[in-house]
């Protein structure tokens, strides 16, 4: 039963991926008229990746991080700087000159090549998460205290990126950049856009199955064990902090990958991505989709963002934030498993109950008839 359920989830994911894959095709054949919609779906794919990463640490390990926007933004800034340097031929950018820098800072000079950029996009967030995690988890800081620290960290990042204006262009962020494949705006650049879209989708598919593999392994079961009984896990001989730290690093790296892909679609990154609102929005995707499954966050991220695309521009624009907030509260209070939980547990349970009570009803009727 459990195995068939896992299979169903994977098939479900592949169907979703298949539908996503059709988007550029539909655009090309004219069924979808707006290319900005397809760009938006591209961004949603990135959101799915960060949501999976968040779920690994929250849904599976039970650690609520309210600061993944930091890692998302780090990935975006890294990739953004590479793209910017492409435009300036590896020379200083305008904002650096305005900021009074004499030459390209060493840290950014490492982002001149794509391979270097990709490595750093993974290594820098991993390093930061690894060091912070080591300090936090070794000292057994957990629960709400961890959440608060993670939130403070993303604020610290936000302030730092604004303060280091000559290096990061402060409030404005890195703007006016093209994707790795060149411009993706408009019908003329359809092939660039399609290429970027499919690369991102491929990354999502790899991340999905890799995460499935992680959670099905003994490592994944230890994560669940930590969530269900941290004490018992210690007393089963596991160095819990090492496990927490590993999953924190993996999840930070996924957020960075998502950020790096995102900026290709978005064309800019600003420190807003490091605000708390942004990190909490990510949490909502996971909560609504269903934590503790890999499929849940994918569905949550897609669904909420598609709703936002369709609803937040019309009459609902003023109350959209309230709807999202309300949905989050309802989910947390009544549907801990999110949509996935409703589909795989609550509905089957309701059906079973119905089936079980039916014969009883009959008996009652018969009794009354007599």
């Amino acid at each position: 039963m459990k195995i068939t359920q896992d299979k169903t989830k994977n098939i479900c994911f592949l169907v979703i991926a298949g539908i996503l894959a059709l988007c550029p095709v539909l655009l090309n054949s004219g069924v979808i008229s707006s290319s900005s919609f397809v760009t938006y779906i591209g961004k949603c794919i990135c959101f799915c990746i960060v949501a999976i990463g968040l779920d690994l640490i929250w849904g599976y390990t039970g650690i609520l991080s309210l600061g993944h926007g930091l890692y998302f933004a780090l990935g975006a800034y890294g990739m953004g700087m590479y793209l910017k340097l492409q435009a300036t031929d590896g020379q200083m950018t305008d904002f650096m000159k305005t900021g009074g820098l004499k030459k390209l800072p060493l840290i950014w000079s490492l982002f001149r090549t794509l391979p270097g950029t990709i490595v750093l996009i993974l290594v820098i967030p991993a390093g930061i998460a690894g060091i912070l995690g080591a300090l936090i988890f070794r000292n057994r800081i957990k629960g709400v205290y961890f959440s608060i620290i993670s939130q403070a960290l993303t604020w610290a990042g936000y302030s730092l990126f604004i303060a280091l204006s000559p290096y990061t262009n402060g409030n404005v962020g890195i703007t006016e950049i093209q994707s790795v494949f060149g411009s993706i705006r408009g019908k003329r650049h359809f092939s660039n856009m399609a290429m970027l879209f499919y690369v991102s989708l491929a990354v999502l598919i790899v991340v999905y199955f890799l995460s499935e593999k992680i959670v099905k392994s003994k490592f994944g079961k230890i994560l669940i064990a930590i969530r269900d009984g941290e004490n018992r896990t210690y007393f089963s001989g596991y160095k819990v902090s090492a496990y927490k730290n590993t999953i924190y690093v993996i999840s930070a790296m996924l957020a960075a990958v998502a950020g790096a892909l995102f900026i290709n679609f978005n064309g800019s990154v600003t420190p807003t991505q490091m605000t708390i609102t942004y990190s909490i929005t990510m949490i909502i995707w996971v909560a609504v989709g269903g934590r503790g499954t890999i499929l849940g966050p994918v569905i949550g991220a897609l669904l909420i963002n598609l709703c936002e695309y369709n609803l937040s521009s019309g009459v609902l624009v003023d109350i959209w934030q309230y709807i999202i907030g309300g949905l989050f509260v309802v989910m947390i209070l009544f549907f801990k498993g999110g949509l996935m939980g409703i589909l795989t547990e609550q509905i089957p349970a309701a059906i079973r109950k119905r089936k079980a009570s039916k014969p009883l009803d009959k008996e009652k009727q018969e009794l009354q008839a007599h």
Partner: protein
Amino acid sequence: MDDEARTIMKIRRVSVVFDGFQALTDVTADIPEHKISFFIGPNGAGKTTLLDIICGKTRPTQGNVRLCNQDGTETILTRLPEYKIVRLGVARKFQTPSVFGGLSVMDNMMLSLKGHKSVREALFYKMTEEDRTLILDTLKQVGMESYTEERAGALDHGHKQWLEIAMLLVQKPQIIMLDEPAAGMNKDETRKTGDILLAIKDRCTIIVIEHDMDFVRQIADEVTVLHEGKILVKGTVEEALENKEVQAVYLGRGGEKDA
């Protein structure tokens, strides 16, 4: 009783102070190998604190606990983190059943196996036939071999307790510590728990904290009575229960009728 039993663990002059409250005072005891040693005493006597000290959850203010290895050397447990103490073969069961509710009984057992505890090993671990046999054999000892695919969180109280005992056994520990294993069990379940412990004592040493006197009479080799953080009496069940001081301590508190 065989008096030649080797001492496997030495508790030496252990004192614990929590914010001025003296939870344990100068507790010294030797734990004999392959025996079932009980620590009994009224609430607040410091029994659970003593287990906390041995397994590394709490650090003593003074004194230490030493594990006597087969080769005659001694390892000081009170300086090690809990996961290292576990790896030395000192396992503990908590008072409330603490199994991994979201996982199957099989997975609960798999995680409790000895070895493969590092992150890297865990990522690439594959269960061997040998491990599977060991798990099934251990589950059989507690009468749960047919429960492998059940979700641990859905088991009833008794089965959770037995599963947790099985999780300790599968680590092949030298010492097993149980904190009120019979709490919340009915008479039959308590007896079954006692039988399980009697069956395993030739393979490991067992330390138990308990209130239920029938359970103590059923299986205890040795009883140590703690009161207000100090050792009151040490001896066989009869010796301990006939002791006037012990009776006063229990009866003076409104009494557990069995004592």
